């Protein structure tokens, strides 16, 4: 097409027609705030209250603090257990306590949680037995808890695949007339995976009540966020799917709980999925087997210490007069007892049964599995006999 003189004239300001009423912005209500939502300053002093994200009840915040302190102690204990050889590996979520605890506090027991391998703290905060949570990492089986009893999917290692499960579960629940919400945890790196996009898209198309909760802890093992995305931030990924999204200061426990509470309400009210990105930081290496000093500056880590979510909430709750020295000490004591109990139970050598390997491949074992089971049984019997002879 060539540019006609008429077209040039039309572009001229003198001949421009009166403005027609602007079409409604189709992204209205979908885009996140340009700055992460924050209700507390990093030092724990409150910011002015806001209408869009009302502050959660102070009792909820006190409970959040308790679970964050216990969660942090659990996390430290799990790391210690790797050093003693009791766990094969442990991916710490130290520094992400506000997200770990806020996520599970925002949902009901009847809702479903879809965690990744970094959500051990979240699962213990949800009330799941820590020994069952750590079964995977101790290595005596894979998932140690019964997902149907605690409405929590197995911790997911294949990145982002749980995003689609959450969409399906949430849709299936609403299809059957239940008001269950699914909360899917995901990290920053995994937002690059196809299943993140397929999951969010399916949830949006089927209006499935899912909250996608991205903990942007800035690193996917060693790879920084700049290598994952050129988007302004991960919360902007929602608009492309028609999913309302928000970003929040992930080290501000009050804001995390406020934003997630609203997101869960949105999902439960039948409006479809909601995407939340929490800006936080992984204080430890990817796992105990990783060396974070190879890819990040110690000064960067130090700077994040000043934004510690536990201290931040403690300062705020003390100022609100719902926490004092005695209460802080009591909670610390509870955390110690929790860790001691975990330590003791993890020090017991778990019983593993090689014959159980065949139990849950199918509802009924195939004839080939029955044969292999007999073979293993014979091998074990022979080994016992040899031991007996020796």
């Amino acid at each position, binding site marked *: 097409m060539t540019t006609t003189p008429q077209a040039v004239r039309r572009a001229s300001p003198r001949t421009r027609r009166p403005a027609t009423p602007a079409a409604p912005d189709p992204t209205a209500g979908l885009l996140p705030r340009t700055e992460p939502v924050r209700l507390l300053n990093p030092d724990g002093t409150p910011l002015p209250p806001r209408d869009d994200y009302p502050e959660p009840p102070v009792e909820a915040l006190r409970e959040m603090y308790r679970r964050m302190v216990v969660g942090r102690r659990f996390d430290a204990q799990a790391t210690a257990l790797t050093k003693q050889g009791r766990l094969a590996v442990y991916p710490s979520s130290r520094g992400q306590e506000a997200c770990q605890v806020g996520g599970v506090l925002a949902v009901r027991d009847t809702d479903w949680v879809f965690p990744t391998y970094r959500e051990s703290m979240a699962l213990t905060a949800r009330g799941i037995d820590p020994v069952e949570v750590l079964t995977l990492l101790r290595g005596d089986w894979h998932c140690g808890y019964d*997902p149907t*009893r605690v409405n929590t999917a197995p911790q997911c290692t294949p990145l982002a*695949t749980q995003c689609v499960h959450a969409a*399906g579960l*949430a*849709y299936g629940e609403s299809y059957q007339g239940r008001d269950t919400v*699914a909360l899917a945890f995901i990290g920053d790196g995994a937002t690059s995976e196809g299943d993140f996009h397929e999951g969010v898209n399916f949830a949006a198309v089927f209006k499935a009540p899912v909250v996608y909760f991205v903990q942007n802890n800035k690193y996917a093992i060693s790879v920084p966020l700049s290598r994952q995305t050129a988007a302004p931030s991960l919360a902007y990924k929602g608009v492309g799917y028609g999913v309302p999204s928000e970003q929040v200061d992930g080290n501000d426990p009050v804001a995390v709980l406020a934003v997630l509470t609203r997101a869960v309400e949105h999902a439960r009210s039948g409006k479809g999925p909601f995407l939340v990105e929490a800006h936080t930081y992984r204080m430890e290496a990817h796992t105990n087997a990783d060396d974070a000093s190879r890819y990040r500056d110690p000064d960067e880590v130090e700077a994040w210490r000043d934004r510690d979510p536990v201290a931040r909430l403690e300062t705020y709750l003390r100022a609100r007069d719902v926490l004092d020295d005695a209460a802080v000490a009591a909670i610390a004591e509870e955390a110690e007892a929790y860790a001691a109990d975990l330590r003791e139970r993890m020090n017991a050598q778990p019983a593993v049964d090689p014959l159980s390997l065949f139990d849950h491949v*199918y*509802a009924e074992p195939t*004839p080939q599995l029955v044969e292999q089971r007999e073979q293993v049984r014979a091998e074990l019997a022979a080994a016992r006999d040899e031991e007996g002879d020796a």
Partner: protein
Amino acid sequence: MATMTMAKALNAALADAMLDDERVVVFGEDVGQLGGVFRITDGLQARFGDKRCFDTPLAEAGIVGFAVGLAMSGLRPVVEMQFDAFAYPAFEQIASHVAKLRNRTRGALSVPIVIRVPYAGGIGGVEHHCDSSEAYYAHTPGLKVVTPATVEDAYSLLREAIDDPDPVVFMEPKKLYFSSAEAELPARTAPFGRAVVRRAGTDATLVAYGPAVPVALEAAEAAREEGWDLEVVDVRTIVPFDDATVTASVRKTGRCVVIQEAQGFAGVGAEIAARVQERCFHALHAPVLRVSGLDIPYPAPMLEHTHLPSVDRVLDTVARLQWDDQPDPRWLAQGSAA
């Protein structure tokens, strides 16, 4: 009795399953209004509504992952992968979740999903529409892998797949969709885990499944002229595999050719040949031979007939089963070249 196509039998199986069990939901690409590109879901949306039979976004990992979630909520999803090779994006969901969830959770979670895969060639399809992908699934513990070769089996095996407590990859041979036979529905044929002797014979056993079964039967007919009376065993369910029926047949005949349309190396036929050899060694008068597709990417339509196991190739292979109890000179030649 009525004459009907395999496509119609599959359609009837889905409809009857949806009628019997309201937890059954059918979804995938183009399965709703259109009724699927092969019309296997024809009429289901009109009959059962768009909550029970629905189109999804065009994303295979999404379809299978969504089915995992639906199954966790208590539904019985039946999903369609439009073509064999289109299912590959879903492989992670299938191998890491569908196949393993029961095991990972010590039986607490099961995901009774049926993944329907129209597969294999012989239909003049262009690339990425004709793969025989059964070995990928059969190699994945936790999946059942089923492939019908007859109209009644198509109905019965699909009904059983939908009722099964475990996930089933249901491989539908595209070239047999519009083959027809006398059938009376609702048919219930032999259950999972049972191979069936389609043609009794005394001289050698042809073991085949899916699209290779008609080839085996045709070869067995043609072999009569050569003086061979061949038995044909239809595997039907690759997983669980029926060693007993196959073994009994080969022990009787003493010779065995395994036929598959898929490329041969590391395929299901290789597994069957190994199992037969392990169990029937003293009954065998000749090595177990295989007829398979060539070890090449699935060829362009004008060349596919060179690739596909043909009656002639099966008969040539049967001829090599050391009928005179003398070493076959071609084996010696191959041996010296190796």
